[in-house]
């Protein structure tokens, strides 16, 4: 990562990034550009450098912030109408940590409203375009962040991954995207979607940058009681990679069929050949429960969404509908106007699966399926060190192609959601391009707390 120094000032880095952001305005990446704030911060860092004072590990590095992270700069809208006008009085822990190291937020990036979606087309601000083909989707929900890094506007961007929202857009744009082990990075100050699967992570151009960001942001936070003690920066068996020739890499047999794009399967085979040439053993895995992960996910996650999104009522912050007769009317009008169709679908599905007549058949059943999926991963990791699979069944698809068919859109997530249900980490890695020039992506999956090893291992796959 290029940090500021006496020769290349932070102001120069920030101005360059802002200029590029404006140059690529037609991609609809940013919901807010932090021109004044970023330049002011850059000058403060340059003054410190001039005085020879200590600056952090990310001194003057411009970055993009997914618009569901709370920070005091600009409105935090989660690309949702209902949060319009919300300027946060608090700052997310992750933002605090990276900015304490000198990183400078140059803009907030577009997402599917409340991160509900796999294409960034569900944004109140319109879709973000793919970095390699403007007729294709950016992927989602962190589409803006992925494109900002892929087009080289910023060195890194933040993302959230509830079911693939970092890995899939990373794959669609040919960059690295990590969904860490559940609980690695504090969720404090990030707009909640599904609390039991939401993860904070990053988009970068190299595994080395990913490692740096993880070492800065991992760790326990008293403001998020689900955070784990910092395992990432601790030397342990989980963080040091064994000799590559002793490693076993699993491939999932159940994904090797025509439901997955041929060129993606080809890219996977090529990487397996590369690993074999380095001495790794390739192990075939049978994971029959994964077939049900998507159904379980689209029960558990909407249930948590219905609960988490009940707080948006127009009373305390954000958008408020006008001319309501009474308080109930205010709630109803605000939510009717303020949510996107996909938000409404998910809230209604959530309330359906949680309602008394259906709870056992859907929610409880899905929670049991989750146990089976966790067990299946545990079994798999007794046979291999990592799993290498596609991130999604296809490369970036055309804008508008799936937006009117929610089930087709959900199927995009079939290979990514099981990781979130199991709490295991996954790193999307670039794996070449298809015939039409669209990036292909794969994901490296490991047991819980193996994030550092995964990142180390990704270097072997370049």
């Amino acid at each position, binding site marked *: 990562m290029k940090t500021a120094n006496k020769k290349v000032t932070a102001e120069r880095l920030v101005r360059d990034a802002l200029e590029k952001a404006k140059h690529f305005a037609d991609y609809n990446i940013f919901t807010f550009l932090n021109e004044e704030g970023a330049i002011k911060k850059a000058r403060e860092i340059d003054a410190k450098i001039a005085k020879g004072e200590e600056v952090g590990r990310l001194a003057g590095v411009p970055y993009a912030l997914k618009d569901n992270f709370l920070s005091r700069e600009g409105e935090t809208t989660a690309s949702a109408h209902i949060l319009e006008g919300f300027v946060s*009085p*608090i700052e997310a822990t992750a933002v605090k940590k990276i900015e304490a190291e000198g990183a400078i937020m140059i803009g907030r990036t577009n997402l599917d409203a409340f991160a509900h979606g796999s294409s960034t087309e569900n944004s109140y601000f319109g879709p973000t375009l793919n970095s390699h083909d403007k007729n294709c989707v950016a992927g989602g929900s962190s589409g803006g962040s992925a494109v900002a890094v892929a087009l080289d506007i910023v060195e890194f961007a933040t993302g959230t991954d509830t079911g693939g929202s970092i890995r899939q857009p990373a794959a669609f744009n040919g960059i690295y995207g990590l969904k860490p082990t*559940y*609980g690695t990075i504090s969720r404090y100050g990030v707009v909640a979607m599904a609390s*039991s699967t939401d993860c904070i992570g990053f988009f970068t151009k190299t595994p080395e940058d990913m490692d740096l960001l993880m070492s800065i942001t991992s760790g326990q936070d*008293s403001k998020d*009681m*689900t955070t*784990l003690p910092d395992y990432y920066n601790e030397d342990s068996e989980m963080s040091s990679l064994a000799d590559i020739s002793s490693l076993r890499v699993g491939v999932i047999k159940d994904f090797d069929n025509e439901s997955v794009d041929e060129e993606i399967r080809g890219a996977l085979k090529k990487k397996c050949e590369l690993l074999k040439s380095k001495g790794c053993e390739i192990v075939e895995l049978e994971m029959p*429960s994964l077939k*049900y992960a*998507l*159904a379980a996910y*689209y*029960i558990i996650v909407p249930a948590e969404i*219905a609960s988490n999104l009940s707080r948006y*009522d*127009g*009373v*305390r*912050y*954000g958008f*408020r509908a006008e001319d*309501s*007769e*009474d*308080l109930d009317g*205010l*709630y*109803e009008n605000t*939510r*009717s106007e303020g*949510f996107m*169709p996909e938000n*409404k*679908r998910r*809230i*209604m*599905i959530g*309330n*359906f*699966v949680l*309602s008394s007549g259906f709870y056992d*058949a*859907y929610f409880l*059943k*899905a*929670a*049991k*399926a*989750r*146990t*089976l999926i*966790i067990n299946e991963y545990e079994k798999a990791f007794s046979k291999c060190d990592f799993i290498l699979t596609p991130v999604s069944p296809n490369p970036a698809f055309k804008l508008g192609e799936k937006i009117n068919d*929610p*089930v087709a859109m*959900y199927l995009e997530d079939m290979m990514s959601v099981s990781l979130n*249900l*199991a*709490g295991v980490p996954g790193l999307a890695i670039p794996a070449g391009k298809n015939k039409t020039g669209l990036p292909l992506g794969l994901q490296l999956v490991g047991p819980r707390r193996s994030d550092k090893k995964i990142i180390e291992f990704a270097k072997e796959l370049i």
Partner: protein
Amino acid sequence: MKIAREDIVHLASLSNFSLSDQEIESLGKDLEDIIGYISQLNELNTDDIEPTYQVFEMENVWRPDEIIVQEAERESLLALTKEEKDHQIKVPKVL
């Protein structure tokens, strides 16, 4: 699975929003498709399996019993609401 119009309207009211006629139709169809898809879980045998709600099975994570001063102050929180009167958030009549 067929979902009746009144069930869609009921779900919307549980969710605290209302739907236009057009939304009732389009969301109704979407919900049928989605519920049709997630119902495939019925194929999976989950006899004698315990449910998982949180992956690390955490319970009672304690913190020291100290007063934590929140970084957001009253003034900045009140500034976020659309209508304020005498340091109170103003809403339409409740009853």
